[in-house]
């Protein structure tokens, strides 16, 4: 066995050798770590969003930034505090951002079983977010009382707004056909069935006719050169139906977005790093604060680089939050802020170039 001091020298040599070979992304990582070191001395505010600017003449200028927190899956505190610790950690992250994000998107599944206590608790916790919060609904919020409690707290589940030249749309993409009335399921049974990802008797998510009509009308007022950013809980494409990593009328929604020069979809539900591009539309998944899902056994988009498998012994690994830098033309750089790993940025250039520039770190330790 090697002497401890010798091992330290080896590690140090390897470290310095690596520094000489840094590419841009590694430089960012190192700079972030260095900034954290500075912050530890108390000279700076220490948080996960330490801004590190590097010269990048080719990239369009950043227009503004918004943050996200998603898939918190809160139980009532008396039953389970783990997921509460996690959402509070995410709120600390976004509150520590300097400058503050223009707003914070909550990506759905605030509650685990849609209970009034869970929703009330979530609403109370989210009051601690300093920036304005934009709410989106998930199936875990919805199927106990078909959204009644959620709407009481947060208002409409489908809406749009304009911000700094970008048209934002928030959808309820977790509509499924009624499969509970005929077998006389109770609201609780319906909720449990919807909350089970691997439920073999589930139904596919849809945006539905009514919302697509609304969306058509809403987008009719928007010029094609105006960038559009859509928030949906489920991915607005088809990946893996058995887990509802899927929206059944995705193609029809995509057709409504096709006329726009720049359209981007930010979705929750999948609890993992996901990137996709279909036509002019860029898609990005969000991390969950509660737990990471495994990747679906099939249907993974070509441009997705899988994140490393989560370490179950670290309750925060594979979880996190993130922020989205909206660029001048309306495209976005999507930042995954992993709590137990280096952050990863999926840039607009990466998707625009079909994964040939701004490459992502490859998955490693696949046998781990």
């Amino acid at each position: 066995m090697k002497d401890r001091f010798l091992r330290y020298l080896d590690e140090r040599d390897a470290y310095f050798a690596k520094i000489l070979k840094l590419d841009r992304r590694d430089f960012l990582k190192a700079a972030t770590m260095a900034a954290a070191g500075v912050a530890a001395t108390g000279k700076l505010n220490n948080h996960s969003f330490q801004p590190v600017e590097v010269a990048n003449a080719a990239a369009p200028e950043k227009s503004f930034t918004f943050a996200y927190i998603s898939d918190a899956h809160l139980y009532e505190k008396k039953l389970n505090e783990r997921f509460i610790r996690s959402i509070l950690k995410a709120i600390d992250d976004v509150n520590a951002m300097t400058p503050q994000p223009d707003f914070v998107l909550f990506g759905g599944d605030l509650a685990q079983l849609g209970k009034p206590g869970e929703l009330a608790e979530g609403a109370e916790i989210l009051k601690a977010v300093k920036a304005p919060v934009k709410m989106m609904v998930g199936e875990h919020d919805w199927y106990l009382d078909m959204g009644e409690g959620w709407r009481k707290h947060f208002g409409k589940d489908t809406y749009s707004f304009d911000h700094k030249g970008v048209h934002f749309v928030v959808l309820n993409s977790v509509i499924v056909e009624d499969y509970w009335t005929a077998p006389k399921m109770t609201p609780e049974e319906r909720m449990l069935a919807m909350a089970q990802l691997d439920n073999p008797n589930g139904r596919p998510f849809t945006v539905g006719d009514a919302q697509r009509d609304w969306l058509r009308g809403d987008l009719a007022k928007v010029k094609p050169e105006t960038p559009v950013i859509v928030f949906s809980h489920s991915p607005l494409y088809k990946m893996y139906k058995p887990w509802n990593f899927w929206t059944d009328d995705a193609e029809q929604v995509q057709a409504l977005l096709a006329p726009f020069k720049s359209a981007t979809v930010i979705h929750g539900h999948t609890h993992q790093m996901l990137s996709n591009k279909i036509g002019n539309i860029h898609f990005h998944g969000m991390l969950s604060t509660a737990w990471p899902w495994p990747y679906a056994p099939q249907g993974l988009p070509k441009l997705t680089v899988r994140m490393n498998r989560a370490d179950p012994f670290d309750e925060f690994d594979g979880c996190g939050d993130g922020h989205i830098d909206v660029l001048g033309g309306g495209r976005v750089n999507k930042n995954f802020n992993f709590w137990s790993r280096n952050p990863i940025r999926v840039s607009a250039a990466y998707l625009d170039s079909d994964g040939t520039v701004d490459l992502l770190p490859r998955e490693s330790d696949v046998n781990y």
Partner: protein
Amino acid sequence: MRITTRRTILGLAAPLCLMALALPLRSDGTGKAGAVEVSLCDGTSTMTIEGLKPGEALPRERAQQTADQMMQIWRQTKGEEAWVAWSDERDQALVRIASTSPEAALAAAAAAQAASPVADQPTKFSARDKMLWAREEKKWIDEGYKLYHSTAWGGTIGISCDMCHPDGANTHPETYPKYQSQLKKVALLRDMINWCIENPGKGKPLAENDPMMRAMEAYILSTRKGVPMEPGKH
């Protein structure tokens, strides 16, 4: 006495019998002091060994001489043609013994069996047998499925297994046993089930033979049964 003599003669005849295959020596002690009569296993050729006391063993060299003399008697009786045929057979046997290890012989037998058409193999199991077994197996898997999708195993904070491992994903049961670096020991699937019960689930670990443990193992294993192993993919 008779028994002892027979054993002695068989001992010296053994190498010859192995080679001769159909012509083993047969001993037939007379019990006379100072001489033992032996006979070949053809039942007719006989010979008396002088000076051998009953209960006494011949030294190896003299035993071989005796066996050779016996075979010469047989050769004179049977004629040259029979002798050549026997010699050929002996030589082939010697070659096979020298060139075939027991392992190779077993492998060759297994290959021959595998090459025979499966459809022609008779089975003693009926469709009813198989149906009953499948039904019993399903009972365990279904029970495991229920536990896996609930906290009936003693979870105290609402978390169930499927919340992180839908359809058993990322439980990769086929990769156990393996060194679990976080536990710093070799883990079996049941060790990880108990780890999940205790840590994310905040329950008490199950005994290894607890029916709930067996059922959960059955369900998790069933999600990967017969699927080729692809580490890191599931």
